[in-house]
């Protein structure tokens, strides 16, 4: 595929994302509807309640879902490239279960530091888990990826047991826990956006700057190193940056599955394996997908709001199977 065509596809994905964002502002409970969207261009004409709905509820939620979608898809694309394995998702290093354990600890212990309590605990636990897995997967100064994968899976199982134990002991807190684990954006706020944003602003450029290294990994680590890539350093940096991104995402939205697995697959089919286009395209499609998943979660059973994580898995799994069965080339 010609490079110009790939750029057109990325541009199209950006346009779709922007349109989806505008559309999403007009959907939800409350007075402000799609037909009122135009008045958004003139904020002075809005009623105070409309302003609150728009700027304090819908906008931060919109931005969070876009950021989390971007982070999960981008991380998925990076990790699949790094591990040279199509079944890798952003949670491969045990991040999700670590985050969930953190959240459960926060809920059960009753510690309260304001709105930040839950995200902070889950973020710290997620990171601690990741570094534990990275440490376990390290042999000498090398990181053999297959050992890392196994370490991630093992730690994941261990923490899943802890989560079950936590739920067993939760009593009346069970509801809160389940909600957190299933993932969603119902408690979105500007504060969460502000805490999340720095990770993204720093993480995204770092990841993009490693597109070429990720391409060389396609030829195998040995060849990559012989071409001048500092393989171990690259692995370490990319694993740490994606872990920070995913831990931050998990801390604000809980565990949202399948986006980080499926989106890079779709992009790989459309645009190919070159990470210079694969990464940005995954990012933009991931944002749109999670944004739409959130829109559906709010509207499908209105006024009941579904957990986004449940929705993405319900839609993602069959779609993933469909992709696997029709795709014969590449992975």
């Amino acid at each position, binding site marked *: 595929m010609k490079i110009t065509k790939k750029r057109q596809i990325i541009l199209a994905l950006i346009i779709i994302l922007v349109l989806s964002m505008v559309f999403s502002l007009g959907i939800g409970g409350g007075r402000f509807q799609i037909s009122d969207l135009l008045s958004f261009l003139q904020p002075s004409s809005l009623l105070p309640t409309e302003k609150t709905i728009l700027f304090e509820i819908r906008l931060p939620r919109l931005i969070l879902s876009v950021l989390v979608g971007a982070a999960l898809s981008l991380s998925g694309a990076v990790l699949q490239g790094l591990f040279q394995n199509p079944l890798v998702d952003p949670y491969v290093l045990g991040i999700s279960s670590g985050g969930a354990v953190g959240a459960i600890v926060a809920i059960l212990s009753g510690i309260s530091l304001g709105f930040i309590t839950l995200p902070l605990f889950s973020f710290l636990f997620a990171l601690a888990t990741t570094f534990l897995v990275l440490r376990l997967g390290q042999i000498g100064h090398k990181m053999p990826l297959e050992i890392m994968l196994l370490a991630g899976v093992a730690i994941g199982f261990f923490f899943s047991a802890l989560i079950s134990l936590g739920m067993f002991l939760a009593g009346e807190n069970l509801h809160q826990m389940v909600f957190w684990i299933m993932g969603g954006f119902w408690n979105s706020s500007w504060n969460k956006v502000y805490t999340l944003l720095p990770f993204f602003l720093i993480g995204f450029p770092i990841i993009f700057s490693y597109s*070429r290294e990720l391409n060389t990994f396609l030829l195998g680590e040995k*060849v990559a*190193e012989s071409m001048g890539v500092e393989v171990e350093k690259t692995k370490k940096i990319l694993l740490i940056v994606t872990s920070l991104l995913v831990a931050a995402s998990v801390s604000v939205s809980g565990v949202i599955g399948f986006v980080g697995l499926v989106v890079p697959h779709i992009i790989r089919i459309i645009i190919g394996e070159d990470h210079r286009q694969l990464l940005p395209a995954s990012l933009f499609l991931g944002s749109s997908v999670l944004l739409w998943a959130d829109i559906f979660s709010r509207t499908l059973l209105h006024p009941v709001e579904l957990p986004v994580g449940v929705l993405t898995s319900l839609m993602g799994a069959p779609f993933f199977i469909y992709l696997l069965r029709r795709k014969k080339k590449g992975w």
Partner: protein
Amino acid sequence: MSFSLSVKNLFFSYGDRKVLHNVNFNIQKGDFVGILGPNGSGKSTLLHLLSGLLMPDTGSIFISGKNTQELSRKNWSQEIAIVFQETNLNLDLECYDVIMMGRFPHWRRWQKENQQDIDSVLNALQITNTQQFANRPFRELSGGEKQRVMIARALAQEPNILLLDEPTSHLDILHQLDIMRILFLLQKKDITILGVFHDINLVSQFCNQVMFLKKGVIVHRGLVGKSLHAPQVEELFDVEFLEEIHPYSLRPFFMPLGIVKKIESPSASIHLICGGGSGSNFMKEFLEAGFSVSVGIVNQFDSDQEMASKLGIPVMIEKPFSPISDDNFQKAINLAAQSDYIFIAPGYWGRGNLKNLDLAISLQERGKKIFFLQDSLDRNWDYTEGLAINKLNLLAQHHAEVFSSFTELIDRIKKDCLK
């Protein structure tokens, strides 16, 4: 003067297993070195060390006079590129993009591809004759084509030294020659090449230097014309080789004889009476069974004589197309007397070689054990009106042992050896 590549006191081991032991060599710019050696001799490890994929336990590597320990990973890759055996990669990328990846060591982070990068890739495409694949996905190519693209990718690094780890092992003969011709061409462009190969003849025809590696030690080095000969090759692989001259390249051409190299202490010695090609197969069989062999009397230019000489077997020779002289008869008795057993190969008997049976009779009189096969008594092979058969019968009457099959004979001798 400074060498293109210089290795000093290189040692390397995987844990307790010593792989390379005190490796030293210098290579001039523009040399094409073929590295030969049995499996597990440390050839691949040496290439990994030279390209910086492994670090030596002790010792140093100098590239164009620069100590590699002071080179960054990228600088190292600007000097040395390596092509591996591969490649069953199923990349979806176009070959042009794969080759462009070779430019990696010349890029700074965020730097865009410039005209120099494009020129370099086009040049690599041209040298490797891969222009026609440039816009095709890598996975659609055949093994040989993929390997050419991988060489192009290595050339895009613009290295001074190109390493190849068994680049032709999985390829058919046409593609093997293709690759070797490309390398030969590169050598003319003053790129230093070191390649690990399994095919001695490819090395002999295309390389100008050889390096023999055995059990982690360089056992032999030098110019192909001077240093690549059967004795060294046999020593290296423990297999017997026949050395001929290749009719076009005039370089040595080696043919494995399918015989494990002569055993230091043979368990038994056998004198073979044969002629007209009747003995060639038995020479090989005896040698493989671990026995030493002598042959005679055969006429010069008889195929048995030629085979015995090629195998380095002591042989008593009579002049071409001549009956056996008394002088040679006596010499043959002296030669055969050193053996434990005498074996008469089944073959044709005529007036010319009938004396060989007298040889056997004389030896039997001296107490030598005589063996022959049942087949020898076939009257159709006797062109002496029964004289030969009579002599064979006479031998049998005096306790020569007659076997129905050759394996039976071998077993008999081996049983003797055990006593």
